[in-house]
């Protein structure tokens, strides 16, 4: 599975691979949200965590439609399905590579963006922690959507419609955690729920996505 993870990582980091594009998109979305609200420091500090969360979700979303589609089109997915490893493990490696090239860079850059919005330090720290815990769930649930819409014409649109609702618990809890920290309350319950969602996704998503892939590769 290491082989597939490393291949996807290398492909994403290459020219036109999508990792750079995804990170730029992350910054642009957050900046646009910043520009489109009133330039009041207090308001920006309130909007900031939400903007970072939305930017992370959208950055994950734009590269999801290629997650299996590219391999499907060039025949790699057939060979991946024929390989000695179970398809579930292949899904997990691909979702991990997707997270490593979208969710992880967004998590690492989140403090920078939060500072841009003048989010208080405690809330910035909590927001970053929330992304570290919650962002893997975006790639995992996203993989299910990507597998379901495989081979569908203009599947990217359908994919967004399917996946966006699945992203919402992670976004809601991330915002709850950041708000709690900004109000100097304990954000740990929201963070634990975020972790629970990620762990739940880790347990279910590979099987659900693999089942969808089996139908679509057939």
């Amino acid at each position, binding site marked *: 599975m290491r082989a597939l993870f490393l291949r996807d990582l290398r*492909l994403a980091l290459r*020219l036109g691979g999508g990792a750079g594009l995804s990170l730029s998109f992350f910054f642009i979305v957050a900046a646009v949200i910043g520009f489109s609200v009133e330039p009041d420091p207090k308001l920006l500090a309130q909007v900031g965590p939400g903007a970072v969360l939305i930017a992370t979700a959208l950055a994950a979303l734009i590269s999801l439609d290629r997650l299996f589609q590219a391999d499907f*089109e*060039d*025949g*790699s997915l057939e*060979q991946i399905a024929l*390989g000695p490893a179970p398809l579930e493990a292949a899904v997990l490696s691909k979702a991990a590579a997707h997270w490593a090239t979208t969710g992880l860079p967004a998590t690492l850059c989140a403090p920078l963006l939060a500072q841009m919005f003048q989010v208080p330090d405690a809330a910035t720290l909590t927001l970053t922690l929330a992304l570290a815990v919650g962002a893997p769930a975006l790639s995992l649930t996203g993989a299910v959507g990507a597998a379901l819409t495989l081979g569908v014409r203009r599947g990217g649109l359908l994919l967004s419609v399917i996946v966006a609702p699945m992203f919402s618990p992670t976004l809601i809890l991330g915002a709850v955690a950041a708000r709690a920290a900004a109000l100097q309350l304990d954000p740990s319950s929201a963070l634990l729920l975020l972790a629970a969602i990620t762990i739940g996704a880790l347990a279910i998503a590979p099987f659900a996505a693999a089942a969808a892939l089996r139908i679509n590769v057939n």
Partner: protein
Amino acid sequence: MRLEVKDLAAFRGDRRIFAGVSFVIEPGVAATLRGPNGSGKTTLLRALAGLSRPAAGDAVAADASLQQERDLYQERIAYAGHADAVKPAMTPREALRFWGDYFDTPRAELDERVEAALTQFELTDFADRPAGRLSAGQRRRTGLARLLLLERPIWLLDEPFNALDANAVDALARIIQSHLNAGGAALLALHGPSPLREDATFNMTDFTAVAPPASDPFLDGFDDVFAQTEPLP
């Protein structure tokens, strides 16, 4: 290794593609699969590769059954389809190293086997050029070179000579022949003439002709309903 196909059938939706497909390919034999477009050659190869579950029947590689011991069966099969499974951003050497690694080639042998495969398919001159900048034939050869890495006894090849020039056709024929000489077997879906000795030829139209009528467990349930309706005057 011997491949035995027993009464295999496949459907797409409720349309029967083929049924009653039975044949045996002995070790050392390259069998040719022929039939007009849309007669189900690709569907049959994909079913035999284990990519789709056949509606009925079974295939046995040596003693491993597709229906019962899928993993063991699949370990004996190598499949090369229409698509080459080569990423435009990866070079042939990288692609082969990846597939070798993915298919659990021992790490100590990986480099050696990749270089051997590159040499046999005459890919060494452009082994480090991204596949997106290679010709269709060069990409095809890269995809086929995967067969040599996997060291599997039964090869299922879907139109393997497509896009290849005369030289490459000869090279591939030689490679298939040496695979057969080593006790391997191959099933090739072909349109044109085969550069190999055609030891056995199966025609898809023969299978579809002798097929039993399609039975649909869902629609069969309606037979009673239909039986009760009055025939039109």
